[in-house]
């Protein structure tokens, strides 16, 4: 590993969660403005995590703390892999492992809501991960390599070769931002036992670490989305922001659906579209 790659990896490790936190803050501010409210400050997610870090509470299970730390390590590792220009497919599998650790931790809790939430989290994984995988394969096929550096070095924007992948990526961003489906989502103002089931037994520092892992996850997903227009750093940033704000606007102007709709309709439809794009790339 060269010194340059090492510096990029360290920058990814530090900056990606910070950018994910800022994205969460921007999401809450824009959502509030769309609802004619002033909303919290941009730094609110950081205050929330700082507050959770200071809380004194007993863990619901000792295993839970272990899974939270594994989830955080996996999420940060996926950021590092992307920042170092490494294999995007490996990054995808590592972030999927992080999501699985969150569900496994919830299964360790004693609350029935936690277990129900964990089961629904697995349904969610089943719905968006195949779409995300096909989208990554499409990116690799269109650019000629699985490593992030070759995707970013592709000639011209990949968006024009991958138009049918866009709905799939928007679906993935909506799910990863925890906007929809409403009976799994954990966005703010949606707090009930079943709705935020997966987070029921997480509290205090464990919950703070989980939130940081979530920021790192969001950064990875938006980063991969930005590969659709990777002609330069500013263009990538703009593409990531377009996906973020598209998800916020869709969430605010339309009803959130149930997990059954996600699993039975949205996931198959977006998977078919992304697969059709992949077939088209192979036939081209």
């Amino acid at each position, binding site marked *: 590993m060269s010194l340059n790659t090492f510096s990029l990896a360290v920058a990814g490790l530090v900056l990606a969660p910070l950018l994910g936190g800022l994205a969460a803050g921007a999401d*809450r501010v824009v959502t*509030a403005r769309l*609802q*004619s*409210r*002033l*909303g*919290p*400050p941009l730094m*609110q997610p*950081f*205050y*929330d*995590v*700082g*507050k959770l*870090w*200071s*809380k*004194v*509470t007993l863990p*619901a299970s000792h295993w839970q703390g272990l899974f939270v730390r594994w989830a955080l390590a996996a999420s940060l590792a996926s950021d590092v892999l992307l920042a170092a220009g490494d294999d995007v497919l490996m990054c995808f599998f590592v972030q999927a492992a992080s999501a699985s650790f969150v569900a496994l931790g919830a299964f360790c809790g004693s609350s029935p809501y936690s277990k129900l939430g964990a089961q629904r989290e697995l349904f969610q994984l089943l719905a968006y991960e195949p779409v995300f995988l096909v989208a990554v394969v499409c990116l690799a096929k269109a650019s000629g390599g699985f490593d992030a550096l070759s995707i970013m070095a592709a000639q011209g924007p990949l968006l024009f070769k991958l138009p049918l992948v866009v709905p799939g990526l928007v679906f993935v961003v909506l799910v990863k931002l925890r906007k929809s489906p409403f009976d799994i989502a954990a966005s*703010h*103002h949606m*707090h*009930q*036992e079943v*709705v*935020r089931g997966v*987070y*029921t*037994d*997480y*509290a*205090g520092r464990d*919950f703070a670490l989980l939130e940081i892992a979530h920021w790192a996850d969001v950064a990875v997903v938006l980063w991969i989305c930005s590969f659709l227009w990777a002609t330069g750093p500013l263009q990538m940033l703009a593409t990531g922001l377009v996906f973020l704000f598209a998800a916020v606007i869709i969430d605010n102007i339309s009803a959130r659906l149930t997990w059954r709709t996600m699993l039975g309709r949205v996931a198959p439809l977006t998977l078919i579209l992304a697969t059709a794009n992949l077939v088209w790339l192979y036939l081209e």
Partner: protein
Amino acid sequence: MFGSFLKTAQVKSPWLLHFDCGSCNGCDIETLACLTPVYDVERFGIINVGNPRHADVLVVTGTVNQRNAVILKNLYDQMPTPKLVIAIGACGCSGGVFREAPNVLGGIDKVIPVDVYVPGCPAKPEAIMDAVVLGLGKLKGILEAGK
């Protein structure tokens, strides 16, 4: 610097757990009105949570009676420290017009320690928001004294 940020964060991010202990729903409606765009308490970082393990402030409306006293105590015990309790409305403060009823124990402070009392029947949203701010001032004082 990190310690100072953590103290600021505790004051800037109060998550409320609202428990209706036997209210007529008048105070509940006023409490939930605080979350609407008219009052928009989220601008102070306040959000309404449904899980005591995530909550910092327990907002209780209505009287305590023999049946719900155990649940109220249980919710309070599940909240991580430091935590605040706000009693909303005449019933929450003292039992109100129901205080002489045979099944009623009285106000919230008969079961758990209360930090801020909000009088009124029902309490106004402005008074509820003021109570949260007062409570946070008290929390800040506790944090400052603890350093």
